């Protein structure tokens, strides 16, 4: 499902979302009458570098200044972080963290943040954007990829076939939407043949005000057997000293 189709389905009441030359998605749209969503994101498999991260964060801060009611959608079809000497020289980690912080702050301010993964994403770009939202949904042809198998084969010195074989037994390392969903990263996969607007509204109705539940989701889906339990045990031990 292409971005244009997604925007049409998400915003039946109109939108002004555009994709700039640098691959940034910016704009807003009405997913219901009188209900406006702000939109940021990355399109066309763009790598996220210092300029992109700063621009997206700048837009988010500007939105926060207006204290909007509606959700902020993060539409994503990106590469990983931009891998270059210049980006690292300038402190890419701070730019990416800054963007993630802006998204988390929006959510803490009561503005729902919803990631919509419709294409590819990887590594630092994924963490700084979609994984910093309250809820991450995906379209079926999304291709999240923390680490690609050929690179992994090179580093672990295991044959690709062996890795593919191992990947069948566990969702914990191999790329792909199903694996990410099973570990709890992706809450829901939307049905592209139904109205995305309706699915968004349904999602907003079900929003749980509680904290980060991705580890619990990962346990329920048998994707991450230990994370939730370890976190809660450490949390309890640390609290007992307070």
């Amino acid at each position, binding site marked *: 499902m292409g971005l244009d189709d997604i925007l049409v389905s998400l915003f039946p009441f109109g939108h002004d979302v555009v994709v700039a030359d640098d691959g940034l998605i910016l704009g807003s749209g009405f997913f219901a009458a009188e209900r406006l969503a702000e939109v940021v994101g990355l399109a066309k498999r763009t790598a996220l570098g210092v300029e992109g991260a700063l621009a997206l*964060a700048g837009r988010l801060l500007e939105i926060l200044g207006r204290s909007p009611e509606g959700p902020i959608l993060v539409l994503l079809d990106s590469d990983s972080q931009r891998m270059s000497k210049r980006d*690292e020289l*300038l402190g890419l980690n701070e730019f990416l963290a800054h963007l*993630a*912080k802006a998204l988390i702050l929006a959510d803490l301010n009561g503005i729902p943040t919803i990631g919509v993964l419709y294409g590819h994403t990887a590594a630092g770009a994924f963490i700084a954007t979609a994984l910093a939202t309250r809820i991450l949904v995906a379209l079926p042809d999304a291709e999240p990829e923390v680490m690609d198998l050929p690179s992994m084969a090179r580093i672990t010195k295991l044959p690709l076939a062996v890795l593919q074989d191992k990947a069948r037994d566990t969702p*914990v390392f191999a790329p792909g939407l199903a694996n990410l969903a099973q570990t709890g990263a992706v809450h829901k996969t939307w049905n592209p043949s139904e109205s995305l607007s309706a699915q968004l509204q349904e999602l907003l109705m079900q929003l749980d005000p509680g904290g980060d539940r991705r580890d619990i989701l990962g346990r329920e889906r048998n994707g991450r057997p*230990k994370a939730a339990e370890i976190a809660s045990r*450490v*949390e*309890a031990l640390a609290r007992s000293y307070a």
Partner: protein
Amino acid sequence: MTEATLSPPLAGAPSLISWYEATARQRLAALLDPPSFDEFLGPDQREVSPHLPIFDLPEQFDDGMIVGRGLLDGCPVLVAAQEGRFMGGAFGEVHGAKLTGLLRAARDIPGVTVLILFDTGGVRLQEANAGELAIAEIMRAMIEARRAGTRVVGLIGGRAGCYGGGGLIAGCCSVLVVSEQGRISVSGPEVIETNRGVEEFDARDRALVWRTMGGKHRRLIGGADLFAGDSVDSFRAAAITAIQRAEPFSQDVLAAEQARLKERLSRFGACTDATEVWAALGIERPELVPAMVTDDFITLANSKQEAHRGAR
């Protein structure tokens, strides 16, 4: 500016144990008031990674992450330390969840400080999805805690540096202390070289790596707030100072960070090497910076780049 004013290191003296060389446990023992450290889910609990056996890789009883509480200069702190030599200090499911749990507790303990001793290559690739998600959960928990008033101090100077998602977590801390050895970066040297070619970045050129990603550069551009020498003593002193510097997290803080990073891009965006950045900062002999000893460098850094209070 000379490269030769520091008195020789008095080796063997416990006060000068190298941070870079120490294990995570040795760092904690030397950083905190003795014998105040109490570990949560210690090695005797054997909470190891459930995923390493798939790859026939050895486990470590603490999965490379040590969490607990202790006293720093008499003040209660929660601490987390990564062991950079085990799996490169990389984030896996258990490793990450320990820090997530610690930060979630910190959110609800008024006035508490969290110290994070980073030493990581990023995501552990044998459990990449779990590691990536752990990093996202840690960032979320950290910002929630900071917003509730928790101070989070990051200490960076270990063997593995602070790479990948570790760099993003570091970017969410209230205050960062870094030593010369502490490299902070998202993409590692080998990753850049593999993806963009040796002309873009020669990963074997150690001087290039250290001046592009190392602690001195990070301190000079404001990516870290305090510079420490490579000793547990120096890190302890810097951590005590850092706690005073920590500011709560707010929308104003983010706005200040936006302005800070925007200024950085406009000042240094055209530079192609760290020495050009340092020259643009007004450092007269930037080529001498890498060889400068700690005290001289701190004086220089303080004169060229004030720590940005409340802008991270």
